[in-house]
């Protein structure tokens, strides 16, 4: 009832059309990833660029936060006093302070303190670190890249076949045939030879300092990591990592102690016990709360707006300020986060099903 009432109301207000999105944006965005929006493009294009900026933050953030969280969670249970205390201090300071403040601190106290481009910190002429960001070397591809990839795929198939054949020989005849090593050597050989044959399709793209206009220094080329992106990413990763660390610790501690002791009795090393016995079982406990943390990271990425990283909320706010239509734009933002979160949920739920014990 309520929904119908509201829908009717909105129709009266006539403010739920999305026609305005085809109008030109007129505002530039400082950072883009995979998109090519410029100020003459439509508002929809601007919003799309905002979505890609958020997705970039979320994907890299989730991967790094998971790695950091697992490391910190395991470290908290370490028998090494220093390691476990350091992990505890990290978790307790980070998860008990607001993320917003952490992001602002990363930005103003860390990334804005790097030297100007003309005095950039330089590593071997290929890495540059300055107040305008971190520049890394990258590779650019040319026309014969596709051909080389085909050779690589063929090489990989042949290498797998070789490995399988040698492995069978091991099982039948006994002894070691170094199956993996030979397969890898074969693949590497194919890769190198075809790379040269196809005319070196990858070109290194190293950043360099350029001067334009009136003594304006920039680092051009390579991969550019803007300070705004880096600050938000670092803030999200470190913050979410602290929560993931607690989830990992809880997951490991929920396992019966006997698991670790039995594995030790079998003569497995500490590393083998962790990676072969403990973590695979803890994973079943960890995944559902981990999904929550991934969703939190996704939504927290909207805090990037405070330091000017042009993600969804940032672009949405600019659009509202330019043309109004707050209701449809907030509805779009709402829908976008809903879709992003649902995609993550669906992926994590299917992963969860795949690691659960069959028959349970």
């Amino acid at each position, binding site marked *: 009832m309520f*929904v119908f009432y509201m829908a009717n109301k909105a129709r009266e207000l006539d403010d739920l059309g999305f026609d305005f999105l085809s109008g030109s944006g*007129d505002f530039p965005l*400082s950072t883009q990833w995979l998109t090519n929006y410029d*100020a003459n493009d439509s508002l929809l294009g601007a919003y799309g660029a905002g979505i890609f900026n958020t997705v970039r933050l979320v994907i890299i953030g989730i991967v790094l936060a998971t790695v950091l969280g697992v490391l910190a969670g395991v470290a908290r249970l370490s028998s090494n006093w220093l390691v476990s205390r350091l992990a505890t201090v990290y978790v307790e300071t980070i998860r008990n302070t607001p993320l917003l403040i952490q992001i602002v601190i990363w930005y103003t106290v860390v990334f804005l303190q790097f030297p100007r481009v003309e005095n950039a910190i330089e590593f071997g002429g290929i890495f540059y670190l300055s107040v305008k960001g971190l520049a890394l070397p990258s590779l650019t591809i040319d026309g014969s890249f596709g051909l080389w990839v085909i050779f690589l795929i063929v090489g990989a198939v042949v290498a797998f076949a070789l490995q399988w054949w040698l492995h069978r020989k091991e099982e039948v005849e006994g002894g070691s045939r170094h199956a993996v090593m030979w397969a890898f050597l074969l693949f590497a050989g194919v890769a190198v030879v075809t790379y040269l044959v196809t005319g070196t399709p990858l070109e290194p793209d190293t950043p360099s300092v350029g001067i334009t206009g009136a*003594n304006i220094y920039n680092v051009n080329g390579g991969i550019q990591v803007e300070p705004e992106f880096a600050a938000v990413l670092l803030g999200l990763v470190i913050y979410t990592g602290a929560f993931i660390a607690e989830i990992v610790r809880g997951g490991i501690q929920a396992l019966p102690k006997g698991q670790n002791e039995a594995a030790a009795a079998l003569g497995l090393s500490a590393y083998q016990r962790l990676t072969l016995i403990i973590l695979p079982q803890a994973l079943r406990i960890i995944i559902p709360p981990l999904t929550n943390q991934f969703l939190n990271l996704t939504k927290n990425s909207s805090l990037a707006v405070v*330091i*000017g990283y042009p993600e969804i909320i940032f672009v949405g706010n600019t659009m509202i300020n330019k043309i109004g239509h707050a209701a449809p734009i907030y509805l779009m933002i709402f829908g976008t986060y809903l879709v992003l979160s649902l995609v993550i949920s669906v992926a994590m739920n299917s992963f969860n099903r795949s690691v659960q014990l069959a028959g349970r």
Partner: protein
Amino acid sequence: MRLSRLMMMMLAMLAIGMIAAACSSDEDEEVDSGDAGEVVASSDTLKTVLDRGKVIVGVKDSQPGFGNLNPDGTFAGQDVEYAHAIAAALFGDKSKVEFVVASAATRFELLSAEEIDVLIRTTTWTSSRDIDLSSSFTATTFYDGQGIIVNADSAINSINDLEGATICVTTGTTTEVNLANGLAAAGVNYTALTLAGDAEINEAFIAGRCEAWTGDKGNLAGQRSSFPAAEGGPESLRVLPETLSKEPLGPVVRDGDTDWYDVVQWVVFGTMAADELGVNSGNVVAMAANPPTKDIANLLGASFGGAEPSNFGTSLGLSPTFMQSVIGQVGNYDEIYERTIAPIGLAREGSLNASWLDGGLIYSPPIK
């Protein structure tokens, strides 16, 4: 099952969107609109304000010369003076003002949500804001234009030198669009770094994150005047000669409330008329007792040559002598300008903000 759950979700989404629509649009303020409450009163802001005994004004807190928070907690600036002028007109007491700090991004929401009665926050009058955002611009108190500021010792002398530069700009302002248009016209490639406010931009500019900083010239002059001495003070910054845009700034009220609109508008025009007529805070008492001309008598609500006093004040729903309070307690346009904007280094003489009698644009319609 799966499908119906999705449907539910979409309906919920829709419902929330509708609520947002109902709240944010004030074109349709019927008594029955779900969130009625104070909405009913919106068509009579003047009465609401008079009953309340104070006027609530949205101002800026970080722009010397216009709206700035002093270290002692008081506000100062031209926008703030006009807030005081409105209070003096309504209550005969310029102190009956409550200031609400409005950010660039939230100011129109504050206004349409009736958190504030009038928005006086260096807000540029544009067609889309006037039409789409359901707001009405009353008058222009300052004719500004967008400029660019750079380090004084840099080699940048015009916008053509900005090729490859990163330029800091405040989010949610018309300056973003003007910058894009202005530099596109000059054929200059640049990167815009959009930050939340002047304080953040100050930080980024000092760090060298951006080579230039764009904003309204009135704002840039204020920022320059308060640039930290540790970083070189005002002398270390230079404003480029180009003006990228027209930025008429002035008080804004909600649409559809003509009585309140008239009050705000005529208080502003009254200060301009006083400037034209030579009435100031020093001579207003003498002028009211014995007005030298009919125009001055009309402005001050005094009788001239035995005739009835004009109904200028009473027709607005105010005291007949409201302009005496405004001029006596706050001053005329020139006094306000000299007290607030002149100190940040923007001379009135020869600028667009000179009186029309001196070749500027400050002009009051006749009061009669």
